[in-house]
C-alpha cells in the first residue's frame, strides 16, 4: 500500500500551513515526518486521513485518488496524541468499535479483539475502562483500535508525546515490531529526532509547510542537504570555508575536499562538523586534519561522553564529544591547552 502526495496545499485563512508538498511513501515503509510544532506536519497527516480538507493537490492511497473522500472511506487507522479513547467504552469495546461499524459477526469480532489485545500485550485488560488504564496502556489500546479494521495505512500523530520517557522507549519498540510484523505502511509525526532515528525507514523533515529533505536517518545525519536539517537533527559545528581545487580552505588551513563536492568548487561553503567527529588531544600531539590549537573553555558531563568546548586561537568555538577514557588518559581539563582535529566533515552551500 503506497501513499502518494501530489503538490498538496492547505490554507488556513491567509496562511499556507502546507505548501505544494509532494511525497511518495513505499508499501510497508515506516515514514517519519519530523518537524517543530507549527511546521504543518500534523495538518499534513490529518489531510491524509481526511480529517482536514485538501485545498489543492491530490492524495493517492494505493493508486486510488482519495483527495475528496471523507475519512470513513479512506481505510486509514489513526492514532492521536492524547489517546482519544472513547471514555464510556471498555478497552475491548473501543477496539471493537471499527468492527461494529463493519457489522462483523459477534464471534469473529470477539476473536479479533482478543487477538489485538494479545498483540498489544494487554490480554487481561479488555474489560477496563480508559480511566482505569495508564497512559501507556491507553495508547496501546488506541493503537489496537486503529489496527482492528485492518486499515491499509496507519497514521500516528505524536503518539508518544504525552508519555513518560521510559514508557515512550518501550512503546516505540513495540510499535516498530508490530508495524514490521503486519507489514503495514505507516506515517508517524513527531518533533523528537531521537524517536525519528529509532523508528524511521525514512525521515521527511518538514518546516513551514514545506518538505525540506527526505532520506534515511543516516543520510540526513551525515550528509544533510539543508542546514536546517543539520541543525534540527543532532548538534553541529559550523565553519565558513572556501572550496578550491581539491581542497577546502578554512582560514589558512587546508583540508582535503570530500567526494562528490566538485559542484561547489570555487564557492564559499559551510563546513559541518558533528561534535563526535572532532578529535581533542593535548597540545603537541599530532592530529588528522588539524583545525588548530586552543584552550578548553568548558567540560560538561553528557553520560557516555564529555561535551568539551574548545576556544581556538582565532576565537572560533568548537564543540567536541570526547570519551571518558580519552579525557582521563590525556588528562584533559578546564583550561588545558589542546589541539583540535576532525575525522569527518560535510560541505553545504553557503547559507548567506
Amino acid at each position, binding site marked *: 500500500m503506497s501513499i502518494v502526495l501530489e503538490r498538496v496545499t492547505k490554507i488556513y485563512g491567509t496562511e499556507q500551513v502546507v505548501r505544494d508538498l509532494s511525497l511518495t511513501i513505499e508499501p510497508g515503509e515506516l515514514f517519519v515526518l519530523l518537524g517543530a510544532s507549527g511546521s504543518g506536519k500534523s495538518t499534513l497527516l490529518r489531510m491524509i*486521513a*481526511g*480529517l482536514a480538507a485538501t485545498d489543492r493537490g491530490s492524495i493517492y492511497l494505493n493508486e486510488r485518488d482519495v483527495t475528496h473522500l*471523507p*475519512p*470513513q*472511506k*479512506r481505510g*486509514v*487507522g*489513526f492514532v*492521536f496524541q*492524547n489517546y*482519544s479513547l*472513547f*471514555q*464510556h467504552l471498555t478497552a475491548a469495546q473501543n477496539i471493537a*468499535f*471499527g468492527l*461494529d*461499524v*463493519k457489522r462483523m459477526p459477534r464471534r469473529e469480532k470477539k476473536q479479533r479483539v482478543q487477538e489485538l489485545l494479545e498483540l498489544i500485550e494487554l490480554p487481561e485488560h479488555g474489560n477496563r475502562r480508559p*480511566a482505569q488504564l495508564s497512559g501507556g496502556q491507553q495508547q496501546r489500546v*488506541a493503537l489496537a*483500535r*486503529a489496527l*482492528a*479494521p485492518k486499515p491499509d495505512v496507519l497514521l500516528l500523530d505524536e503518539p508518544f508525546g504525552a508519555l513518560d520517557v521510559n514508557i515512550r522507549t518501550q512503546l516505540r519498540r513495540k510499535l516498530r515490531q508490530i508495524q514490521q510484523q503486519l507489514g503495514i505502511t505507516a506515517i508517524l509525526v513527531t518533533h523528537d529526532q531521537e524517536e525519528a532515528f529509532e523508528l524511521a525507514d525514512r525521515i521527511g523533515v518538514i518546516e513551514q509547510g514545506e518538505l525540506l529533505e527526505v532520506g534515511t536517518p543516516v543520510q540526513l545525519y551525515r550528509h544533510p542537504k539543508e542546514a536546517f536539517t543539520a541543525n534540527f537533527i543532532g548538534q553541529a559545528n559550523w565553519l565558513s570555508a572556501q572550496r578550491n581545487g581539491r581542497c577546502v580552505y578554512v582560514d589558512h588551513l587546508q583540508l582535503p575536499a570530500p567526494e562528490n563536492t566538485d559542484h561547489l568548487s570555487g564557492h564559499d561553503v559551510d563546513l559541518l562538523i558533528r561534535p563526535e567527529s572532532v578529535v581533542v588531544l593535548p597540545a603537541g600531539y599530532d592530529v588528522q586534519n588539524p583545525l588548530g590549537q586552543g584552550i578548553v573553555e568548558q567540560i560538561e558531563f553528557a553520560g557516555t561522553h564529555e561535551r568539551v568546548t574548545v576556544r581556538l586561537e582565532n576565537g572560533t568555538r568548537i564543540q567536541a564529544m570526547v570519551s571518558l577514557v580519552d579525557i582521563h588518559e590525556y588528562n584533559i581539563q578546564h583550561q588545558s591547552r589542546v589541539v583540535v582535529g576532525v575525522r569527518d566533515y560535510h560541505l553545504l552551500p553557503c547559507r548567506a
Partner: protein
Amino acid sequence: MAEKRATHWTALVLIVLVVAYAGILLIAPITAIVQQAFVDGIQPMLDSITAPDAREALRLTAIIALATAAINTVMGILVAWVLVRYRFPGRCFIDGLVDLPFVMSPVIVGYVVIVLFGREGWFAGLSIAFTPRAMLLVTVFVSLPFVVREVMPVLRAMPPEQEEAAYTLGASRLLTFRRIILPTIRPAVIYGLVLTLARALGEFGAAAVAGGGVQGYTENATIYIFRSIHDRNDTGAYSMAILLGVISVAVLLSMNILKQVQSRRSQ
C-alpha cells in the same frame, strides 16, 4: 490563637446567618403551603383536583410539558452541537441569542404571539393565537436555553479527536453521534431536560396571554390556579399549587438522582 478563635466565631455567625436566611426565604413559605394541605384534610384537596376542569387543566399541562421537552431536547442538542462544532459568520451573535428567553418577560412572549398571530396579527390566517398550539410555542420558547446551555460545555470539553477517531474507524456521522457523542452528553441532556420539564410545568404568564386562558380549552394548571383565586375557590387554588409544586420538585429530585447514578456508573 486569638486569630483562630475569631475565625471560629465568624464561622458560626456566618453559618447561622445563611441558614436563617434560607429558612425565612425558602423553607418558611414551603412549610406554609404544606401546612395548608393538612388544614382541611386531604380529601377536599383530592376532590378539587379530580374535578373535571382541574383534570382538563392538568392534562393540557402534561401534554405541553412533554411536547416541549421532546422538541427542546432534539433542537437543543442540535443547536448546541452546531454552536460548538462549527464556525460561521455571526456565531457569537447566535450564541448570545440563546440566553434571551431567560430574560424576556413571559408576558412579553405572550404579547409577541398576539402581535404575530392575533386577530389583526401579521400571520392572523394561521389561527395559532388563543389555541393550545400557541401555548406550546411560548413554552418551547421560554425553556429553549436549558438543554443548549447544559450540553454546550460538555460538548466543548469533549475533544474533537473522539469524533475523528470514530470517523477514521469508518463510522458515519449518525453512528458517531449515537455511539460516541450521545453517551458523553447524556447526563447533561437529562439535566437540561429536567429543567425544561420543571419550567414547562410551571409556565404561566406567556401561556395565559398567548392561549387566552379559555376554560376547558387553553387553561393549563397554572391558569387554573389563577382563575381559582379569582373565583375565591381557595381549596382549588391551593391544592393545584401543592400538586404542581410536588410534581416539579419530584421531577427535579428524581432526575438528579438518575444523573448521579449515571455519572457513578460511567466512572
